């Protein structure tokens, strides 16, 4: 059975279909929550951003221009802008890294889970040291696995600018994590 596209579901939603809202939420909201959590480093703020981003999707539905943009790309852009707004409002305050829960993987052993959790915390801490735009570009490229042109569309910059941001971001991350290899379970060499 062919799965309806995000855009088709959005049109159905605009026509009053409640089931379309549920399906769109199931497909898109977890991704928004994931990327917002990474960018903000705070789960509670990320949940607020997710609800806000989805609300904007519901509001745009009746005026959605078919074929102009992918729903997911549009939603990523809204999410990134909302994250920037949150950061602007919170500027001057500290980032609560403890507020980022890493869901435990029941399949992994306890020690392995702890090690993985420590690595992800370290990655998150390193990500939070990057400038806002660098962090967004690195997350979209290396964790969300979007293409450079897609990221350029989301961040409204050129592909070359995306390449520059991700390269610089990756170098900074590697430097930040270099001294923590033993702690993270990586062997030198």
């Amino acid at each position, binding site marked *: 059975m062919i799965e309806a596209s995000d855009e088709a579901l959005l049109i159905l939603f605009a026509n009053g279909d409640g089931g379309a809202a549920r399906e769109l939420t199931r497909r898109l909201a977890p991704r928004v929550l994931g990327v917002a959590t990474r960018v903000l480093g705070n789960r509670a703020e990320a*949940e607020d951003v997710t609800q806000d981003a989805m609300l904007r999707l519901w509001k745009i539905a009746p005026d959605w221009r078919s074929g102009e943009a992918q729903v997911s790309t549009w939603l990523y852009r809204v999410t990134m802008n909302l994250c920037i707004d949150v950061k602007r409002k919170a500027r001057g305050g500290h980032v609560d890294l403890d507020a980022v829960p890493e869901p435990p993987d029941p399949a992994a052993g306890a020690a392995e889970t702890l090690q993985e959790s420590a690595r992800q915390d370290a990655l998150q801490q390193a990500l939070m040291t990057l400038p806002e735009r660098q962090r967004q570009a690195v997350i979209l490229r290396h964790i969300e696995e979007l293409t450079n042109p897609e990221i350029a569309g989301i961040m409204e910059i050129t592909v070359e600018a995306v390449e520059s941001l991700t390269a610089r971001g990756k170098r900074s*991350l590697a430097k930040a994590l270099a001294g923590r290899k033993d702690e993270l379970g990586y062997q030198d060499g």
Partner: protein
Amino acid sequence: MADHQDDKTDFEDLDALFAEARDAATPELPEALMSAILADAAAEQSSWQTVAVTARPDRRGPLALLVMALGGWGSVGGLVAASCTGLWIGIADPEAAQWAPGFTLTAANSTTFSSAAYAAYETFDLATVLAEDLQ
């Protein structure tokens, strides 16, 4: 050279970290958040329906509806003109009708009636005709 090797190793470690992050990148949506998002969606859909319902009542009066039924003000204008002309022809002396613009020419070309001939029929009594037919 050694620096390049270190960089390469650092990036490999970083790629491994990204791969782990990808596995955990799509978290499960908390039930409360799911409910809040769907409640927003339902409220948004309701607001469109409210707008549609409040916009529906037709505020036009009966005259406007009659005009609409007759095909608009253009049609009504034509209808009024035709009615007035018919009324005028009906109550005026038929001879006067010949003075109406365009009527004279038509009458001259298409009818053989003269005023005198028409006058002869003026006194014609329908009852007399019927009586003759019955005989």
